[in-house]
């Protein structure tokens, strides 16, 4: 057997390999210096992520390259989404530095788990086989379960981690079962192979659709769509805020990539079966997410329900690719890139929102109730302004990025003929506007209850300011990002 072994082309997977090696290095370094010099692990992690970004940028050629026996793909889409992932993780690390240090949570495990989770996401983004996809997903999920429970003294965090683990395992199980069905029907584990088998039409349809249902269920679970959303509020609420920020940001990009790879790249032949499924889940998510968010008094829970509704809008773009059974490249790419644009915009906004929560927290105090935002304008007009930008952006009010993301998705949905769906979706965003406005009301119309000075470090302040300004700047000049989303996707799909 051994003489058949060919060393695969490692070049397309260079960022992953680099990250893996560095993760081991951090593990090792932390063993030696961890107790005395905690900053070393943090610095190494940041350097690693910047290094990954550099590698990805240098190796970005827009070509589609398959490696590892066609199980791993490096294309324009994967490069772009990976870059976004690195940036989200880097931002999370900077945002969380002080919070974790104040609570003694900045242990070596934190950095190592973050790195492994990132590696998992990267593998998901680059997966071109059902097995690689599952592998990446599990690597990410297991690291995230660990991260949620990183504060061992907090019973709430432990409970959240347990819930996340049990439900997450269920979700992974669904996905795996669906994958096995699809493998059974098509005889292929490769995503391209599945697509080809579907194209030739020899696969047993009932088995395929059966598998598809489970697959979509698994994807919906990771995206947090209704009715697979139960874990989101509890995990968001229970986890330490930086971990919530982590769970709520970069994994959404990976989950989007998973949905895209499995459903569009792989199961496009069944598009008329999965589009209605996504439609129903999108509408339920938009409805339930927006309605339930109104009732929350905890901002992390509120943002959790808002995440559910945002993923609903995103999926609205994902399900608008094919109109009445006719496949048109432009319409399809237009729709999928709108979903991608939405995901990236959402990650940017949600990081800023959680960043403000971190800004108001300090040693021994969690600013996670809506009340804590009262009178923020009197305490710090600048950061109240930043939060105002995040909230209006999430509500979809221009000139912020959130509006253009919604606009792109609605355009795709209406183009696909779902005008009534779009009307209902915008009506629910009217409902959603209420709870975002409430945060603004607390900040601007009420008097502060907590008058302690804001003690957050300079790094957090600068990053939060940049984040807010970016949300505004991408709203004033939305063209570039939207075009990048479109071209990378177009290139990846045609390559």
């Amino acid at each position, binding site marked *: 057997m051994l003489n058949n072994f060919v060393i695969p082309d490692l070049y397309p997977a260079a960022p992953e390999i680099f990250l893996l090696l560095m993760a081991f290095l951090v593990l090792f370094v932390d063993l030696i210096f961890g107790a005395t010099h905690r900053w070393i692990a943090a610095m190494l992690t940041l350097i690693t992520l910047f290094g990954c970004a550099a590698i990805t940028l240098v190796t970005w050629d827009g070509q589609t390259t398959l490696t590892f026996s066609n199980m791993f793909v490096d294309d324009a889409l994967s490069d772009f989404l990976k870059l976004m992932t690195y940036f989200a993780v880097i931002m999370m690390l900077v945002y969380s530095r002080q919070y974790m240090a104040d609570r003694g949570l900045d242990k070596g495990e934190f950095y190592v788990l973050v790195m492994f989770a990132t590696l998992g996401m990267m593998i998901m983004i680059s997966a071109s086989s059902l097995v690689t996809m599952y592998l990446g997903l599990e690597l990410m999920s297991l690291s995230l379960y660990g991260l949620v429970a990183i504060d061992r003294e907090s019973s709430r965090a432990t409970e959240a981690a347990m819930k996340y683990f049990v439900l997450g395992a269920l979700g992974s199980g669904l996905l795996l079962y669906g994958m096995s069905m699809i493998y059974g029907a098509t005889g292929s584990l490769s995503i391209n192979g599945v697509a080809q088998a579907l194209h030739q039409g020899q696969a047993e349809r009932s088995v395929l659709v059966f598998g598809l249902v489970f697959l979509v269920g698994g994807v919906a679970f990771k995206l947090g769509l209704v009715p697979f959303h139960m874990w989101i509020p509890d995990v968001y609420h229970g986890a330490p805020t930086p971990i919530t920020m982590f769970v709520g940001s970069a994994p959404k990009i990976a989950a989007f990539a998973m949905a895209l790879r499995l459903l569009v790249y792989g199961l496009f032949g069944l598009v008329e079966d999965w589009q209605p499924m996504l439609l129903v889940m999108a509408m339920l998510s938009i409805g339930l997410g927006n309605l339930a968010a109104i009732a929350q008094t905890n901002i992390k829970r509120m943002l959790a329900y808002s995440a559910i509704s945002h993923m609903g809008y995103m999926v609205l773009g994902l399900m608008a690719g094919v109109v009445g059974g006719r496949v048109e490249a432009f319409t399809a790419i237009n729709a999928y890139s709108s979903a991608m644009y939405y995901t990236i915009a959402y990650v940017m906004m949600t990081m800023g929102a959680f960043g403000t929560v971190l800004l108001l927290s300090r040693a021994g105090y969690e600013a996670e109730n809506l009340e804590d935002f009262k009178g923020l304008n009197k305490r710090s007009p600048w950061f109240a302004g930043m939060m105002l930008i995040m909230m209006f952006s999430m509500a979809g009010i221009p*000139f912020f990025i959130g509006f253009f993301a919604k606009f792109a998705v609605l355009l795709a949905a209406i183009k696909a003929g779902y005008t009534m769906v779009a009307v209902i979706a915008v*009506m629910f965003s009217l409902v959603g506007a209420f709870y975002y406005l409430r945060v603004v009301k607390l900040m601007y119309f009420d008097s502060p209850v907590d008058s302690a000075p804001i003690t957050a470090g300079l790094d957090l302040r600068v990053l939060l300011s940049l984040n807010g300004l970016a949300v505004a700047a991408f709203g004033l000049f939305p063209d570039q990002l939207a*075009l990048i989303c479109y071209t990378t996707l177009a290139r990846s799909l045609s390559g």
Partner: protein
Amino acid sequence: MNASLLSLAIWVPILGAVPVFWIGSERRELVRWFSLAVAVAGFLVTIPLYIGFDTSLSGMQFVEKAPWITRFNVEYLLGVDGISMPFILLNSFITVLVVLAGWEVIEEKQAQYMGAFLIMSGLMNGIFSALDGVLFYVFFEASLIPMYIIIGAWGGPNRVYAAFKFFLYTLLGSLLMLVALIWLFLESGGSFNILDWHHLPIGIKPQILIFIAFLVSFAVKVPMWPVHTWLPDAHVEAPTGGSVVLAAIALKLGAYGFVRFSLPIVPDAAHQLAPMMIALSLIAVVYIGFVALVQTDMKKLIAYSSISHMGFVTLGFFIFNQIGVEGALVQMISHGFISAAMFLCVGVMYDRMHSRQIADYGGVANTMPKFAALFVFFAMANSGLPATSGFVGEFMVILGAIKFNFWVGFAAATTLILGAAYTLWMIKRVVFGEVGNDKVAKLKDIGSREFLVLGLLAVCVLAMGLYPFPFTEVMHSSVDNLLKHVAMSKL
């Protein structure tokens, strides 16, 4: 230089607000003077729009075009015609007055107050000059943010309720408009240019749906009966400056929307639904007039009077004749001056007495003679006294309405009686008679700053009433063109 006048009108106030925020509320004098400088600069850059305007052209002038979102073919496309140009001037002018009106009264966070008004002024100019559907929408909705903050942060006791109601009501309408805009984009084969849409053939069924989507959006903004209920709340709770901008400019956005979108894009639906629109307008004119009669709160009374006057505007649009439409436009500008003045007058009294109740006043003329003279003058203008601007617009609309149908004109004409009744009755109870109580006896007359603000408005009201030609001349050919366009079926 000439090419970017509209951009200047939009961005001078918005960018000018940035240093205002930066100066901060601690340096009060600096903030005030700087805000005033920005507002005046914002007004000055709009004056060449009037001077350089070619009244013989009906098309768009001062057009600016640049790609903005190439991905969706959205352009940064600006331009004004005779219908929209006067509103840009009006808006920039009112902003100067608002800054002056907030000079001493606003004690808390004055920098943010001034900055919010400056930003809003720029956004409103954007709405009036945008010729791209998305650009229009973006300005239209972004202008909600500063108004929401203004009502909520500097308003009266029930401000939070009013601010939410204002925001959500208006958002409800504009979201449906967004769907309609996207639909038009797809139907026109990928163009967001409003002028392209004017020539787009559309079937009757989609026309009616689009008309309704626009109607919800603009009717809320105008506001038309029965979606007017946010306005009295917002007006009563907003600070004086907020009420002034709401009444003078924000309400005009809805009416402007009808002229720019509903009438030319879906003319057949507009004709078909005109009876409904006329009925709603007449209800606003007559019924809301009666409602105004029984108000005990002065701001509420003026708010209802605004709704009633805006009913005239929508009536003028949907009778489809030249004099009616022009009258409606004149009425819009005139109402901009008069309602601004009325709210400023109430603000002057409120600053001294901290009450808006009619019953708390009486015999103000005895202690504030200069103020009383101006207040009575504006009240006369509000009830449509000849030689004031209020008369011109109403008279033209009534003439147009009688041409259209005698009974419609007759119903509309009752406003002359009703308007006089509620306005003058309020004046009688507030200004004239014996001094009502000790507080009134101690009132001080208006200072030079207040006199300047009200005096400027009085000059405008009088000038427009005596010699409306410069206003009608500007809009004449654009209205002519609009009516010709609306008369053509798109089916």
